[in-house]
Each structure stands twice: as structure tokens, then as C-alpha cells.
């Protein structure tokens, strides 16, 4: 890996962009393998705990009556939320022609794919008997029994798998010209591998012509998709009659929360990545400031949604709904609730100050708070509602077991394991898009000179 000491020109040329962005791929370093080793150890912990659960039965997890959805579903929703930043930054900002997305979209897209891969594990883990997962798939069986297409859980299977597929296609399409750059710099078997993934790309006018159109269409279809996926996830809850869940604001509330946590994690990851790979000329303070503004905006939406939930409970005059929310704030799970409010509503208010938005250490710390808060948000929504439903006789508390906590910790290692492999084998910034941006900047600069 390159380090912060690597010399990066202040005004890079197209050739500089090729060299600087591909540099980390060609520079192995011990500390990379050390971090990868830590992630692999976490992976071993996760799979060890999961296999133990498969062998011993789902009873080793803390979920039991009345809280049958616990850490596994909380973490599933958390990772699906994280996955939203990639497509938001790539597709929506692409359609809005936001030039600042070019240096962060590749990393954000990679995050999306690895986060969906992580999220996808949790319904399987939660099943207990994981080998029955195919019951959710629409396959023609002898008895002609099909999934219930009126169920939001089946919608979830379709939404998440479509999101993974489209995100991967979108990511790969964007990578094709960069694979050609890597191919042209590589030798031996790496030349063959990058050559195969580049599909023989040569940058002819005909290739670019079709490529630009299809990239635009993919951005166009990914935009409603990203909004639909977390809406569908929210309907897993909102279409039930559990107090605290049965609400019409859930879809926009979940989408805003997803963007909030996703962009926060992009910032958390990009800050050390920028330093480690010496990419200061490409990922500037301006990029971080723009992302920080997005975090502040979505924090306000999320904070407003928290307030709206309480107001709706009060305004409904339904004693069960009112009690559910009173207990959420003041009951047995008051601590997670107030951690959530502090991390997601209070802490991000610091982003009103430009000094905070442009201070990378402050942003790094703040976004970690946001992600802790967003995990707690899902925990509070899921667990407090189930623990305190209609009948006092059916109330109960839930404590996660060591198996659930090991799998939760391991899920972060699983995510970072894939991310680390990505950062060493592919450009973390879209070279073709950065070069397009640089070429236009240079053309404008020369135009201004001429004038």
C-alpha cells in the first residue's frame, strides 16, 4: 500500500490519475495482511458460532417468546441500510450530474455489494435450519406449492436479490474501462485475468457510445430500485399489526435512515483509505464536506421521523400504541433508545459547523457514532415493539446470547474482509470517470487561458 507520504501532484494529469489510482494494487505491504488476518479471525468466529447454532439448534440464540426477531433481523436491516449509500451516490447523484461523486462512487458501490452480501446471510442464520431457505424461492414443485406473493417477506427476497444483482451489474459495467487500464499495465497471468474481465475493451467511439447509454439506463433503473428496497424492508414491519410497527411513515423513514447510515459508513471508510493509499489529490475535503451535508440532511429527516412516530401514537388516542412508545423511551430498553437519539439526532447537529464538516478526525468519530446509533435504531424498533405488545401476560424481555453477539461482530469482519480484498485488487476510484473530469477541467483551464 502507498502511504500518506506518497507524492501526489496537486493538479494531476490523465497519466497521473492512472498511476496514482492503480498504485495501491501493485504495492503489497505487511500491515495489509495483518488487517486482513484480523478480519479472517473475525470470520472464523462468525462461522464457528453459526455452525455451533446449526448443530445445537436455534435455542442457543437469545430469541424466544415474545421476541422472536432479535439481533439477527436487527443486523439484517442495518446492513441493508448500509447498502443504500452505494447506489445513492452512484445512480442518483449521477442522474443529477453531481461531479463530486466521481471519486467516491466506486468505493460506495463496492460497499453496497459487500453490505448486501452481509445482509443476505442474516435471514439464513435466523432460519435456524438453513437448508430450508429454498422454501422462499419460487420453484415448481411436485405439489405446486408456491411462495405467498402477498407476504412482505417474499417481497424482501425479490427486492434484496434484485438489488444485489443490479448493484453488481452496475459496478461491473463501471469497472470495464478500468479493467482495460489494469490490463494494459499488467504482465503475465494478471494480464490474462484483467484482460478477461475487460472483455477486450479498447475505448473505441462505438464502445463508449453504447457504454454511456447503458450506464445511464442502469442509473435510471437503480434509482427507483434503491428507494424500493428499503421500503420493502420496512413493510416487513409496517404490514403487521404490532404496535410501534404498523405505521405509514415507515417506508420514507427507513429509506432516509438507510441513506444516513450508508453515507456515514462511506465517510468512515474513505478517511483511512484516502490516507493509506495517498489519494488526497482525488478525494478532497470538498467531497467529505458534501457527504457530511448529506449526513446532516438525513439526520434531520430521521430525527423528524422519531418525533412523528411519537406524535402519531399520541394523536391516534390508542392506549396500546401510546403505551408502546412510552415504554420505548422509559421502559426496560430506555438506554438503547436514548443512545439512538444521542447518536442519530444530537451528535450530527455538530455538522452545522463548517469546521466540523471539514475536519477529517471529527468526521471520522462522528460517523462512527452515527453507525452505532443506526444499529440501535433497528434494535429499538424491532425488540421494544415485540417485547411489549398487547397483552401484559405476553410481555417479556430479550437478551442477546454470545452466539448472536459473535455473529454480529463477525459480520463486520466479513464485510471488511471482502472490502480489503477489493481495495488491493481493483481501483478504489473510477479512473475513467476521474479522467473525464480532469480532461474537462484542463480543457476549461486552457479555454480560459486563450481568452
Amino acid at each position, binding site marked *: 500500500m502507498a502511504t500518506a507520504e506518497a507524492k501526489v501532484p496537486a493538479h494531476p494529469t490523465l497519466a497521473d490519475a492512472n498511476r496514482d489510482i492503480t498504485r495501491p494494487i501493485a504495492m503489497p505491504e505487511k500491515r495489509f495482511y495483518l488487517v486482513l488476518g484480523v478480519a479472517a479471525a473475525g470470520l472464523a468466529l462468525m462461522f464457528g458460532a453459526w455452525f455451533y447454532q446449526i448443530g445445537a439448534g436455534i435455542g442457543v440464540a437469545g430469541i424466544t417468546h415474545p421476541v422472536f426477531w432479535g439481533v439477527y433481523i436487527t443486523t439484517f436491516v442495518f446492513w441493508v441500510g448500509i447498502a443504500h449509500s452505494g447506489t445513492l451516490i452512484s445512480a442518483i447523484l449521477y442522474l443529477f450530474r453531481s461531479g463530486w461523486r466521481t471519486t467516491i462512487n466506486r468505493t460506495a458501490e463496492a460497499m453496497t455489494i459487500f453490505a448486501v452480501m452481509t445482509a443476505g446471510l442474516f435471514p439464513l442464520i435466523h432460519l435456524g435450519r438453513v437448508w430450508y431457505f429454498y422454501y422462499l424461492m419460487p420453484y415448481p414443485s411436485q405439489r405446486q406449492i408456491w411462495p405467498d406473493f402477498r407476504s412482505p417477506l417474499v417481497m424482501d427476497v425479490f427486492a434484496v436479490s434484485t438489488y444485489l444483482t443490479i448493484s453488481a451489474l452496475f459496478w461491473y459495467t463501471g469497472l470495464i474501462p478500468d479493467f482495460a487500464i489494469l490490463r494494459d499495465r499488467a504482465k503475465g497471468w494478471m494480464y490474462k485475468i484483467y484482460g478477461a474481465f475487460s472483455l477486450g475493451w479498447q475505448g473505441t467511439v462505438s464502445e463508449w457510445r453504447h457504454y454511456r447509454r447503458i450506464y445511464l439506463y442502469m442509473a435510471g433503473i437503480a434509482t427507483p*430500485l434503491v428507494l424500493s428496497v428499503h421500503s420493502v424492508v420496512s413493510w416487513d414491519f409496517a404490514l403487521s399489526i404490532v404496535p410501534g410497527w404498523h405505521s405509514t411513515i415507515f417506508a420514507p423513514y427507513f429509506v432516509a435512515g438507510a441513506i444516513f447510515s450508508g453515507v456515514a459508513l462511506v465517510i468512515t471508510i474513505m478517511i483511512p483509505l484516502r490516507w493509506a493509499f495517498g489519494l488526497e489529490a482525488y478525494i478532497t475535503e470538498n467531497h467529505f464536506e458534501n457527504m457530511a451535508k448529506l449526513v446532516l440532511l438525513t439526520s434531520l429527516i430521521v430525527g423528524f421521523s422519531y418525533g412523528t412516530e411519537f406524535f402519531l401514537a399520541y394523536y391516534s388516542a390508542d392506549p396500546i400504541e401510546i403505551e408502546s412508545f412510552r415504554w420505548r423511551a422509559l421502559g426496560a430498553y430506555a438506554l438503547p433508545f436514548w443512545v439512538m437519539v444521542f447518536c442519530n439526532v444530537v451528535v450530527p447537529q455538530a455538522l452545522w459547523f463548517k469546521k466540523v464538516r471539514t475536519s477529517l478526525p471529527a468526521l471520522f468519530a462522528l460517523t462512527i457514532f452515527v453507525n452505532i446509533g443506526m444499529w440501535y435504531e433497528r434494535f429499538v424498533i424491532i425488540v421494544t415493539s415485540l417485547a411489549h405488545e398487547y397483552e401484559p401476560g405476553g410481555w417479556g424481555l430479550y437478551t442477546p446470547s454470545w452466539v448472536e453477539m459473535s455473529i454480529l461482530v463477525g459480520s463486520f469482519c466479513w464485510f471488511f474482509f471482502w472490502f480489503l480484498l477489493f481495495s488491493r485488487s481493483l481501483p478504489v476510484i473510477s479512473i475513467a470517470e476521474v479522467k473525464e473530469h480532469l480532461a474537462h477541467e484542463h480543457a476549461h483551464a486552457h479555454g480560459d487561458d486563450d481568452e
Partner: protein
Amino acid sequence: MRTHTGMTMSSGVLGQYDTLPGTLDAIARLRDAGHRDIEVFSPIPSPEIEEAMDIHSSPVRVWALTGAITGCTLGVLLTAGTSLAYPLVTQGKPLVSLPPFVVFMFELTVLLTGIFGLVALLVHTKRPVINLDPAYRTSFSVDRWGIFVPANGEGTAAAEALVRETSAVDVEVQG
């Protein structure tokens, strides 16, 4: 390998340029001189080059639309078809309940639009290929633009002279 108009790229003149404006100027000059079958290599996506070469629409949009219609139809068939094939009333809803089924239609529409789009890219760019074109240079993926003018026999010298008149930083005769 063929140019975008279908001409083979076995012999001709290759000019390399280090700026986009220089490339655009060369394209205009070559086209004015009657060379309409040139191939252009570019390190970046450039709508200006497409405009200079009078290329506008791309047929991939038809593929995307076909994928969208196929996906939506598949969504209807999968949800309504299977509900009618095994008629079991659940959740007190009609067998064909459009509101929940719309989610599946939408997801499959998006899914097949994306897949058809990528296939269209491969079909229309005639990819994947194993061997790169003889006119391709690795500098085209770094910071240079290339213009290949197909020519043979006596036409080669005239094409070379024309390319040299432009701002080409390097000129090669091929074949």
C-alpha cells in the same frame, strides 16, 4: 477488427493525439476530406467525439425496453399465474391481489432491464474478444486519443499526409 462503419482495420494510418480538442479538430478535417469510416480511440467517454462523428442514438435502449416489458410480464405471470394455479385464499385477500403483486412486477422489470442492457452492450460492441485490434495502443488507455484511417495502396500516402497535417503527436502507417 472493423471500424464502427464496418471497414476492416488491417491496413491504414494511425495518428495519436494528446488533447481532446486536437482530436476533434482532426476528426473534422478527416471527415471533410471524405474519410467517414475512421475509428477513434479515447481514454475517456466523450460525447463531443460522438457528435463530431455524427453518431447519435444507440440501439441498447431497445434492448432495455424489451427487458423491462419481459420482466413486467414475467412478474404478472409468476404472481397471478401461481395464485390461480393453486387457489388458496390467504390473508383474506383476493387470489389476484394487485397491490402486493406490483412489487414483484417492479423488481423483475428492473432486474431484466439491467440484464438485457448488459447483454446489449456485449452484442453491439461485439465483446468479449481475446485479441486486441492491431491499431490499438496501450497509450489509449492512459492519456492519448487515436484516430485510425483505413487505407491501402496509393490511398495510404494521401491519408498519411492528411493525418500529418493535423496536430498528431505520432503517426504510424500500418499494413
